[in-house]
């Protein structure tokens, strides 16, 4: 009986020992699990942020490329007005404005960029109306230096927006 009682006490002690250390192992395991989950989450978040940064850079590079294309068109429009071939300039002008209207709707643009593009569209529309009206009436385009000056101002404005875009993507 005594032997049996000693054995039971031994088993009981061992069980307490295991219960005690089991409890701490569980706590430590839980802390480690939490730490690993947090680490995984922060790594996933860092990867997500990095992917988003790259996506925005690619998108802004694309927008900048579109703007460069429009600037080329407007440069040619300017040159055509200098060469006094307004009918050719008008065609290219319409094409450049259409591209600009599409570009201005891109959700990646910042508010001030959208406002600047909108201003350019409004001015290009006014220039287009003046040129088309003169052509329909068979008249000279008022003061040609004014048209050229205004076209240059729109080209300068778009160049500024493009520079901002490229700086932001860098």
């Amino acid at each position: 009986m005594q032997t049996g009682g000693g054995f039971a006490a031994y088993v009981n002690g061992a069980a307490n020992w295991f219960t005690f250390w089991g409890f701490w192992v569980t706590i430590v395991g839980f802390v480690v699990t939490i730490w690993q989950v947090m680490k995984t989450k922060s790594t996933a978040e860092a990867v997500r942020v990095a992917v988003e940064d790259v996506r925005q850079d690619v998108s802004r590079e694309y927008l900048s490329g579109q703007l460069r294309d429009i600037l080329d068109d407007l440069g040619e429009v300017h040159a055509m007005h200098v060469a006094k071939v307004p009918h050719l300039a008008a065609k290219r002008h319409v094409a450049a404005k259409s591209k600009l209207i599409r570009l201005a709707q891109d959700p990646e643009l910042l508010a001030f960029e959208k406002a600047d593009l909108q201003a350019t569209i409004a001015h290009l529309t006014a220039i287009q109306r003046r040129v088309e009206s003169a052509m329909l009436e068979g008249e000279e385009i008022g003061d040609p230096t004014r048209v050229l000056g205004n076209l240059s101002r729109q080209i300068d404005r778009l160049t500024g927006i493009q520079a901002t875009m490229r700086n932001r993507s860098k």
Partner: protein
Amino acid sequence: MSSTDEKLMKLVARLNEKSSNGEVPWEPDAVDDAKFLASFPGYSVAIAKRDRRGGPPVHTFSILDGSGNAIESVSISEDSYLDYWPDANRDLSGLFHLARRKALDVEQALDNLLKAL
């Protein structure tokens, strides 16, 4: 008064208020000396003045869409009247005055002249 008229009046009132603080980016129109534009994402607003032979000038306020086309406009002069907007002439002529000063940077010119004298 329709809700659109009410919003139009509210817009002009706000533009007047913000323009008097120099907060609206007015700029001269590309082809018209007596027209000024301010652009925001997706839309522009324009205020123009037309002199009439033998009559008071007409002020026209327009809203331009994302393609540069006018989608709404209101014209008023001293000898005309809008039932829904009794102060339209005062509001639009005031806005034209503020837009012109901002677009042509009259403030800067005055500062420089005062400094030079």
